[in-house]
């Protein structure tokens, strides 16, 4: 009996020692795991990619550009192409050309570029494409750099865009409206702007309305004369665009009845100006692309509708083009993406989706 008791005491003592050692080891292990997760900030090993692609844009904060980047990045993850928002990590702001120079010097594998018509940009694109074995594949998105050796351009059909924008303007026009003003971006190629105007003109012709003030007898609009004017807005410098637009609206002589925007910056500036200048209802606005404020404005009726290009798709197509070029050595020169109109009928769903995305991060 006693021996049994002694043995159980010994077993208890041994168990206690084992438990103590376990507690110490578990404590140490817990600390290490905790410090690894929290302190050392050691995440899972980052994914390795085959190609390094620089995404270069003049406006990183622009939702349109951001959507393109996000689309490209997501598509790149599947295709083994790391898409870097080039220059975003730098403390200073650099121009597109400077970023291009950096990317070329850094010897990236590809560049997705929001093109422009500057000669120096074209030169740099050509320099990248002419590096022989170290050739850097350049794909322009949203805006093209005509005349450059870029391998592909991904963007909306400008003619179609003009046509659709104008059809929206006519859809919301009433009998009192006379002047339609198209705001054009000076950064964009003249050709592009011209194509947009052509599209609008085509619609007006179809409806027998023209810029000289012909009587409308077509399927759209009312039996009134419309004047189609255009204004180039310089958005190269900060606040420039907004100031110009504010001046346009404030001046009763230049204030149009309908404003058609061709960039998101313009749309936001117009919206802000007509609210500030108490012109809601007096000026009808056909916007370009959207952010949350613009969608809310559509919901409230301040902006009538907005033309939305599938920016995400542009990014995806850009990465696909790079992949194809890397694989086959050639790719389509131009890839168009779809667009849609957002107005009061469908704005609620998009707004909710956007808000949900913001909440979920």
């Amino acid at each position: 009996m006693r021996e049994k008791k002694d043995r159980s005491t010994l077993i208890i003592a041994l168990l206690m020692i084992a438990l103590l050692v376990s507690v110490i080891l578990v404590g140490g292990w817990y600390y290490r795991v905790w410090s690894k997760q929290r302190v050392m900030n050691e995440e899972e090993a980052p994914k390795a990619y085959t190609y390094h692609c620089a995404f270069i844009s003049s406006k990183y904060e622009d939702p349109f550009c951001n959507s393109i980047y996000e689309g490209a990045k997501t598509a790149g993850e599947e295709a083994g192409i790391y898409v870097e928002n080039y220059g975003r990590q730098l403390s200073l702001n650099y121009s597109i050309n400077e970023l291009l120079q950096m990317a070329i010097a850094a010897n990236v594998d590809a560049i997705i570029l929001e093109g422009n018509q500057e000669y120096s940009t074209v030169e740099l694109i050509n320099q990248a494409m002419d590096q022989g074995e170290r050739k850097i594949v350049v794909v322009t998105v949203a805006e093209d750099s005509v005349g450059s050796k870029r391998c592909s351009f991904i963007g909306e059909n400008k003619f179609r865009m003009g046509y659709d924008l104008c059809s929206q303007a006519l859809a919301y026009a009433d009998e009192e409206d006379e002047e339609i003003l198209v705001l054009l971006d000076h950064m964009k190629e003249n050709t592009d702007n011209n194509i947009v105007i052509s599209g609008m003109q085509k619609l007006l012709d179809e409806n027998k309305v023209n810029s000289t003030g012909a009587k409308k007898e077509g399927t759209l609009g009312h039996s009134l004369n419309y004047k189609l004017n255009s204004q180039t807005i310089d958005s190269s410098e900060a606040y420039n665009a907004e100031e110009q637009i504010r001046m346009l609206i404030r001046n009763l002589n230049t204030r149009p009845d309908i404003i058609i925007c061709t960039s998101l910056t313009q749309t936001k500036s117009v919206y802000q100006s007509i609210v500030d200048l108490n012109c809601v209802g007096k000026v009808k606005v056909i916007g370009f692309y959207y952010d949350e404020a613009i969608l809310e404005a559509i919901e409230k009726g301040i902006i009538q509708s907005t033309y939305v290009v599938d920016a995400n798709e542009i990014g995806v197509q850009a990465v696909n083009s790079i992949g194809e070029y890397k694989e086959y050595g050639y790719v389509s020169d131009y890839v168009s993406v779809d667009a849609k109109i957002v107005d009061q009928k469908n704005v609620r769903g998009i707004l909710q989706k956007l808000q949900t995305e913001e909440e979920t991060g």
Partner: protein
Amino acid sequence: MRIDKALQGGMKKFVSHLSIQTKLISMFLLTSLLAFFATNYMLTNINRSLLAIEKVYTSNEELNVISEALNGIQQNMKEYLDSRSSDSLNGYYRCIQEYSNRIQELNGEIIGKDSAIMEKNIRGISDSYLTITGEAVEARRARDINRYSVSYDKASDLYNYLNAYIFSLNNQQFKDNSANYANLAVSLELLGRITTVMNIIVALFNVLLIFLLTRQITRPLKELSKAANAVAEGNFNLPDLPVHSMDEVGVVTKTFNEMLVSIRAYILRIKESMEAENEAKERELLMKNHLKDAQLKYYQAQIHPHFLFNTLNAGAQLAMLENAERTYSFIQKMSEFFRYSMNNLEKDVYLREELELVESYIYIMNVRFSGEICFEQQITCDIEGILVPGMILQPLVENAVQYGIRDIDWEGKVILSVKEEDSKYCICVEDNGKGIPPQRLAEIQKGVITTSADKGLSNGVGLGNVRERLELYYKEDSLFSIESEGQGTRVYIYIPKGSLFTP
């Protein structure tokens, strides 16, 4: 299996032979080792964390060195382009060497991590920068002003980009490292808490462990003190205390057990000797009682024998004078019989003398009853030298004559036989008389009736007296038995050979 058991047994033996001092030292060492292990383990973790804290800003330091080397390249290149001095050229190459070495340590792979991609960009731009600075220096050597000026401009641009990149990366890493530093500080604080909790747990465990193990040592002591108290109160019939170890307590317990056994044995011996003494005294008293009882009976009868004895002597002389031979013989036998009876009751006598007394008695009885008693002796062994208590046979024969064959219609016969049986001599007195009724026989066997002789018919010594004297002399039971089946009675007396009564 057997080896295991042997090892286990050996281990158990080894542990049980450890002294208390060794056990206590082992316990102290064990608990100290546990505490040491816990402290050391946590200290290792603390050291590791401190090392991590020390390394937090290493990457920033590396980038600063890279930046300095880059500045050195740019300055030396500019100086060389301006002055073509060999010092600046040497400085340029030295800086390039250092810069290249440092740059090689940066990431060159395409990894989905911002800082890693920035490092890759720095490496890529650095390669281009070094190529262009090389071209500028070469052009300067060749005095190609246009070329080196273009290269210098390009190099300057790249230099600026690199600086911007390094600066940004430095900032980014500083931000990350600061966050890491803050987290490390928090973790160190947590580690401090864990260590404190761990120490408390270890201390509690150690106290519990010491409690458990010391209980092993103190429990036998407690049992021992309890047993000692019981002994002090006079309780010696305690079970043996178990001895589990051969330490000091084990030795004391074992000695205590032996002491208890000794005390018990001693007490038993004293008790036995006292009992024996009491028994001896009791027996002595009993014997004296019986003797006195017999003596008294004989003294009562002594008046007649003495008177008769003297008278018989005178009668014998008278018979001799008158030439009456048979009368003389008869009176002479009677005189001898009474003399023997009177003198030998308290003495030990030879069996032969007892037999002679019986013959005398029969002779007297035959004269008295006109020769009716047929007496026969059957002695089948050597009876010389056998000593017996006096007056043990005559009462038996007298009993046979008085109660057996007296008043019977047929010829009375008494047979006295002596034979040797193993360790005893068996003396049997048999008669063919009327026997003893079963009820009376049972009472005689139980000793209730002693068959005391009728006055005038016997010498007064009964069967009971004979039996008791035999048992007292030889300190044995079953030395006397009596049988009677219908006719005839047999009385047996057994004289032990080995315990012969010595006078």
